[in-house]
């Protein structure tokens, strides 16, 4: 029994590595599709879901979605295996793996969905699962706050995106991302194009941490390192970039698109890399370089030229390879050397030689040295930057600056902890177990192999991806060595600046820290201010509308109804005014007088009991009026309800405070005004309703079908229990719930009262 549970129970070997194995299997499945996609084919499957709204369960596999799917499942397998070892024996390991798998499924759905509504559903699922993952250490308040920040920023962007998708669906006539490019010209000329673009960009920029929403990403590093490696470098933050790429053929190429992507992307790239230099925590430094990478990709997506799009696609893959490897390496250092502070580590090259090699290979790719994939990516970036449609000089400047700082940070990550005097917080630093280092090693060596033979990944995935984005066939030849040209010159310039920066790292860091401490305004302060303001508004309106007094609640509810009625009347221009009909008969005058007496007596008396009785009189009179006009069922119900109302309220009255102290003269005038407004509003509305010819189609239907189909002559009751029985079922369910609610309230009061007495 115990052997069985240790083999398959929670935390067992099989269960721990099951997600990794499954993910690898799915990745292999996707890999078999590569030859098909490399020939620029597109696969699409679709099932109807909500046909009335044009929402389908449709999935699309083309170059773009396959590239993402391979990254998600491939890096997923590596991270899952790593986590299983990293969190061995952790009490919440199962929870973590379940969340990671849920996240992976959401992310896969996001990139594979063709229908934009479907994509949005997965988009929100990634937001929610990443909220749970960032807040994984939920006992810590800071982790909770940062998880909430990530949720609020990306959630707000998600709402904007939903609005954008709906507008796009209205303008374009379809929600299928693969069909929308066919009507791209109509969309771009439509007057709603700018709102649509703005909303999509808000969604993409918040998700992919673009300036000024970039602050949540470094804060999300409260998540455990494997989670950060997966969500915040390789997958989730790339969802925004994916959206931009997917929308390029539909929304891209216009002036607003070019400039917003170029400037936002460029500024994000430079800000991200500057703040990366300031960090002493290796993980935070990497987080900021991720901001830089996302900015770069955004900038190149705004470039419009096919070569710029190719550069964006290439860098996407390059970055996933080296950044995931480096994140996982930092996790290995954290676990086995006891720290991820750059100053606390040193001389670990020998005891952690596997970690050292992995870090070096990944960092060389990050810095863009030949013959690594990073070099190919960087050369393409410079080639693309020179060809962008917006402003080549600007893009080249942004790209060179950001890349130079990347060189410095890559050097800091791969050199500082491994050379020099031995420094470590662990007694005996050593390489982590196989499951932890094999994945990063795979990624790091992959960066080298694909660098030596870039056409492997280039013609198989990058060209189809760029083709999807640009709409024209892209068949770029990927080579490691291009000969001496402008991009190579720019590369050399980048290395020189980068090396200078590296040797002045301490001085730069000190300067940036001083700047930070002087409290310069950052986007995060804006977020804090907005959040505080929102809470203040919520508190204020709750204090006014829901102060805990029943009379206030009633006042606001009634006032809202009166305001709605009057605004409808005013909007209608009082089109239908009271018309002179026949004079009321004597019995009608009597009813009116009784009702009026009841109403005035209710308002005038200070005795609660008298008020209730007077109200009962009013209700009874109304019931009598119903009898006069033949609505017997309504009259019976009304009369019985009034009776029970008086009985129940008479009991409740014993507990209610006397009316007098709560109703001063001013308040009574206010209530009188409200009652008058509601009364006249209702009366005028009824006149308006009565002056319209009654559409008798529904009544006729019931009159004709009631007896032959439902065997009942009382139409009211037949409607209640047969034609519209579902409504009734809902209503009686509400009645039962309300009764149980009252019961629970009173019982809990009784229990606390009993305890107090004890």
């Amino acid at each position, binding site marked *: 029994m115990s052997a069985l549970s240790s083999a398959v129970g929670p935390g067992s070997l099989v269960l721990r590595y099951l997600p990794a194995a499954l993910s690898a299997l799915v990745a292999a499945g996707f890999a078999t599709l590569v030859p098909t996609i490399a020939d620029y084919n597109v696969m699409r499957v679709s099932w109807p879901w909500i046909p009335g709204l044009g929402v389908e369960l449709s999935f699309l596999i083309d170059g773009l979605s396959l590239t993402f799917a391979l990254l998600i499942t491939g890096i997923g397998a590596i991270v899952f295996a790593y986590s299983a070892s990293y969190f061995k024996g952790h009490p919440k390991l199962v929870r973590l793996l379940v969340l990671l798998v849920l996240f992976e499924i959401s992310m896969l759905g996001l990139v594979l969905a063709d229908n934009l509504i479907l994509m949005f559903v997965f988009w929100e699922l990634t937001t929610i699962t990443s909220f749970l993952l960032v807040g994984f250490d939920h006992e810590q308040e800071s982790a909770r706050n940062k998880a909430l920040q990530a949720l609020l920023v990306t959630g707000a962007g998600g709402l904007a995106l939903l609005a954008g998708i709906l507008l796009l669906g209205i303008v374009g006539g379809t929600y299928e991302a693969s069909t929308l490019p066919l009507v791209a010209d109509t969309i771009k000329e439509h007057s709603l194009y700018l709102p649509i673009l703005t909303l999509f960009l808000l969604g993409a920029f918040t998700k992919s941490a673009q300036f000024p929403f970039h602050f949540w990403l470094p804060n999300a590093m409260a998540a455990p390192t494997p989670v950060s490696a997966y969500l915040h470098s390789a997958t989730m933050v790339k969802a925004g970039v994916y959206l931009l790429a997917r929308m390029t053929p539909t929304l891209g190429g216009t002036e607003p698109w070019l400039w917003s992507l170029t400037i936002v992307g460029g500024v994000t790239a430079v800000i991200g890399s500057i703040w990366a230099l300031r960090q002493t925590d290796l993980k935070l430094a990497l987080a900021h370089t991720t901001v830089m990478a996302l900015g770069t990709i955004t900038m190149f997506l705004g470039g419009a030229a096919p070569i710029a799009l190719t550069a964006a696609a290439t860098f996407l893959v390059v970055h996933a390879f080296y950044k995931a490897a480096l994140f996982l390496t930092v996790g290995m250092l954290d676990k086995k050397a006891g720290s991820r502070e750059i100053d606390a580590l040193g001389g670990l090259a020998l005891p952690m030689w596997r970690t050292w090699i992995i870090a070096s290979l990944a960092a060389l790719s990050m810095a863009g040295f030949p013959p690594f994939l990073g070099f190919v990516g960087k050369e393409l970036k410079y080639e693309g930057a020179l060809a962008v449609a917006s402003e080549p000089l600007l893009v080249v400047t942004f790209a060179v600056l950001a890349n130079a700082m990347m060189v410095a940070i890559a050097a800091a990550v791969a050199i500082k902890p491994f050379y020099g005097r031995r420094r470590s917080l662990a007694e005996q630093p050593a390489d982590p177990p196989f499951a932890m280092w094999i994945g990063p090693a795979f990624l790091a060596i992959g960066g080298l192999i694909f660098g030596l033979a870039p056409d492997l990944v280039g013609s198989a995935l990058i060209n189809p991806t760029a083709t999807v984005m640009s709409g024209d066939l892209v068949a770029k030849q990927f080579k490691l060595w291009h000969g001496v040209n402008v991009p190579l010159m720019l590369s050399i310039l980048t290395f020189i600046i980068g090396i200078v920066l590296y040797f002045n790292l301490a001085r730069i860091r000190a300067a940036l820290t001083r700047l930070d401490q002087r409290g310069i305004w950052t986007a995060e302060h804006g977020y804090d201010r907005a959040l505080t303001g929102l809470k203040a508004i919520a508190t204020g309106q709750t204090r006014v509308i829901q102060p805990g007094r029943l009379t206030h609640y009633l006042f606001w509810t009634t006032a809202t109804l009166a305001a709605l009625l009057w605004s409808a009347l005013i909007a209608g221009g009082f089109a239908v005014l009271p018309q002179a009909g026949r004079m009321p008969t004597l019995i009608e005058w009597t009813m009116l007088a009784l009702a009026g007496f009841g109403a005035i007596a209710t308002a005038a008396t200070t005795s609660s009991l008298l008020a209730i009785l007077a109200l009962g009189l009013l209700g009874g009179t109304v019931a009598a009026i119903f009898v006069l006009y033949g609505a*017997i*069922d309504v009259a*019976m*119900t009304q009369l*019985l*309800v009034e*009776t*029970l109302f008086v*009985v*129940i309220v008479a*009991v*409740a009255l*014993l*507990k209610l405070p006397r009316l007098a102290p709560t109703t001063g003269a001013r308040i009574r005038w206010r209530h009188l005004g409200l009652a008058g407004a509601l009364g006249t509003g209702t009366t005028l509305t009824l006149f308006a309703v009565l002056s319209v010819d009654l559409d008798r189609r529904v009544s006729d239907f019931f009159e004709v079908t009631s007896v*032959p189909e*439902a*065997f*009942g*002559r*009382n139409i*009211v*009751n*037949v409607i*209640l*229990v*047969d034609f519209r*029985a*579902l409504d*009734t*079922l809902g209503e*009686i*369910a509400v*009645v*039962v719930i*309300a*009764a*149980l609610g*009252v*019961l629970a309230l*009173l*019982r809990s*009061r*009784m229990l606390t*009262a*009993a305890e107090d*007495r004890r």
Partner: protein
Amino acid sequence: MNSIILSAATRIVTPLMVAFSIFILLRGHNEPGGGFIGGLVAATAFALYAKAMGVPATLRALSLSPPTIAVVGLAMSTLAGLWGLVQSGVLLKGLWPLLTTADDGSKAGLPIGSVLVFDVGVYLVVVGSVLSILFALEADVAEENEGED
């Protein structure tokens, strides 16, 4: 409330009212009435009984607690709806197993079926819910008065 007149009258009036409420429930399909109104009449009857004899005596007379009555009613109505779903594939479809239709369209047999079960459910929900609230309030007040004594 210790009123001999009230308790004596209640003994006679309450059974009459309950019988009348069932009459209203049953005639509802063709004449004014139905489960909701019938339930209100029955609830008034038991409210009167509770005024005259006290809540504990009423609870004993009812045998089932008011919340139970309400929940049983809701279950009956739901089951009546499911009956239609199972037999004809449409939720809440009215079914009259005891009614036969001749070729000329005339009906024969008893018009009793899923619709009546549904209406009885409504009746029980109304009785149970109103009495739940009323008795809970009464108990709350009684408790408080005890506390003050």
